[in-house]
């Protein structure tokens, strides 16, 4: 029976960076294994990109080349799907299955847990953006503005990720797992349809503009469309995202239930 295994204590935590990397890898592996999450992360954005570029008659995207309007919007959608919907659902089920509770008694500090999650979602986003931009380019997308526009896009994507991730964690930390599953998908669909993600704000009725501009989806997608069209970064859009991130972050830290 005995395998010669010795249990003589030798307790010590691994280094902080090793724990964070290990956690990020674990989350990434589980996410890649989850078919629904991949559907959300890549299949839906790519369908919208390829389908939207062809079907000019179904949805009017306004003046300009359709693919140039569409690609930044689909990038915004991809950011939203990963940093909000995927994160919220995954975290809610971690809570439900006692994973967060169990890790609470492990050497991994909460800061490490959070950073591991962020690293894994950034890795997913990086893959999404590469694929979406590559497909966009193949379909004829001409981004303008060069490197400054790329830099501005990354700033917007980072601020958008912070805003959506905070909102996702707020939902995951307060609602039951099933409610989060339904709610996170619902918010995704509502913002996709009504949050100026793919259809530019200019196509919305004028009285809705202030509201939609103040949504994180509106700020992110409009900002990306502007910089990719060659305009300089409108910092107030970043400010909108930062305010969402800060407000949701504070609320999350006060309300998050670990079990």
């Amino acid at each position: 029976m005995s395998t010669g295994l010795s249990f003589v204590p030798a307790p010590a935590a691994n280094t902080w960076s090793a724990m964070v990397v290990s956690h990020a890898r674990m989350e990434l592996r589980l996410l890649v294994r989850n078919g629904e999450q991949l559907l959300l992360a890549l299949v839906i954005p790519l369908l919208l990109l390829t389908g939207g570029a062809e079907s000019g008659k179904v949805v009017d995207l306004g003046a300009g080349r359709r693919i140039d309007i569409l690609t930044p919007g689909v990038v915004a959608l991809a950011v939203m799907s990963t940093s909000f919907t995927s994160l919220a659902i995954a975290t809610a089920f971690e809570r439900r299955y006692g994973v967060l509770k169990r890790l609470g008694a492990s050497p991994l500090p909460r800061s490490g847990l959070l950073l591991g999650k962020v690293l894994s979602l950034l890795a997913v986003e990086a893959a999404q953006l590469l694929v979406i931009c590559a497909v966009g380019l193949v379909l004829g997308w001409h981004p303008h503005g060069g490197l400054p526009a790329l830099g501005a896009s990354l700033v917007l994507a980072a601020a958008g990720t912070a805003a959506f991730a905070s909102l996702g964690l707020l939902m995951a930390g307060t609602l039951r797992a099933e409610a989060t599953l339904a709610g996170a998908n619902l918010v995704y669909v509502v913002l996709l349809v009504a949050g100026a993600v793919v259809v530019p704000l200019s196509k919305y009725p004028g009285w809705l503009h202030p509201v939609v501009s103040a949504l994180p989806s509106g700020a992110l997608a409009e900002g990306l469309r502007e910089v990719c069209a060659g305009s300089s970064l409108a910092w107030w859009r970043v400010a909108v995202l930062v305010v969402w991130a800060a407000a949701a972050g504070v609320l999350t830290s006060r309300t998050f239930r670990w079990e």
Partner: protein
Amino acid sequence: MSVPAVEVTDLVMRYGEVTAVDGLSLRVEPATTTAILGPNGAGKTTMLETCEGYRTPQSGSVRVLGLDPVRQHGALAPRLGVMLQAGGAWSGVRADEMLGYVASLYAHPLAVPDVVERLGLASCGRTPYRRLSGGQQQRLGLAMAIVGRPEIVFLDEPTAGLDPQSRRATWELVEQLAADGVSVVLTTHYMEEAERLARRVVVVDHGRVIASGSPGELMSAGAKNTILFTAKPGLHTDELLWALPEEYSVVEEPAGHYRVEGEVTPHTLAAVTAWCASLDVMPEDLVIGKHSLEDVFLALTGKRLRS
């Protein structure tokens, strides 16, 4: 004087109106196994989770390895092995993957393949956690508690729902943990488990310690032993009572069923059979009943452990 592995002093924990732990005190010596026994709702899990740092004591104090589990959580966590009553792993994770992940959080973990073999987790294969059997999930939980080579482990019902073979394997593991110098605190519903594993048994009810001691102490202190037999009804038991020392009692209940209570020795047995012989009565179905911890528990709490 070594630092106690666990020292709980006058701990009080309430959930709203309900008092889960009501002035509980407990001391666990290093490298020993302590079993916490109690009916459902006695406050066992709340007490354990306070030691694990999940809850802040509302009154009283808790020290684990001399540290405050909440304020000094960062220093304590690496030295702690925790097995929750249920869950604790991602639904889509494989057993060896989960164990490897937990091991990666420690500087000197046990070799994962050795632990997988020792706890029979190889049979889990590539099955995701949510589809493992209850026993496999329990064994993985135990593996996760020990893989970091902790100084102290808290096991919340480690053998609940295990088949006898797995239970025995878990017992052997716990015995080796203690032999190798690990302090073990476990809750259980199984008497035989407490009797076999624990140097010290702590009986908890209504959030208080109502008895504690070694299994042997509890059994001898908590209840007497008995001799049971059947014979024809209406025998004069007074004569038997005179033949026995003072602290013994003899009752006939129901008619024809006799029970002698007291310390059972060869002399007691001889006295009983001599009395029967003097009456020319054959004692049928004679049984010597040693009280188990289960009886002690029932006597102390008025409840069965497994309801």
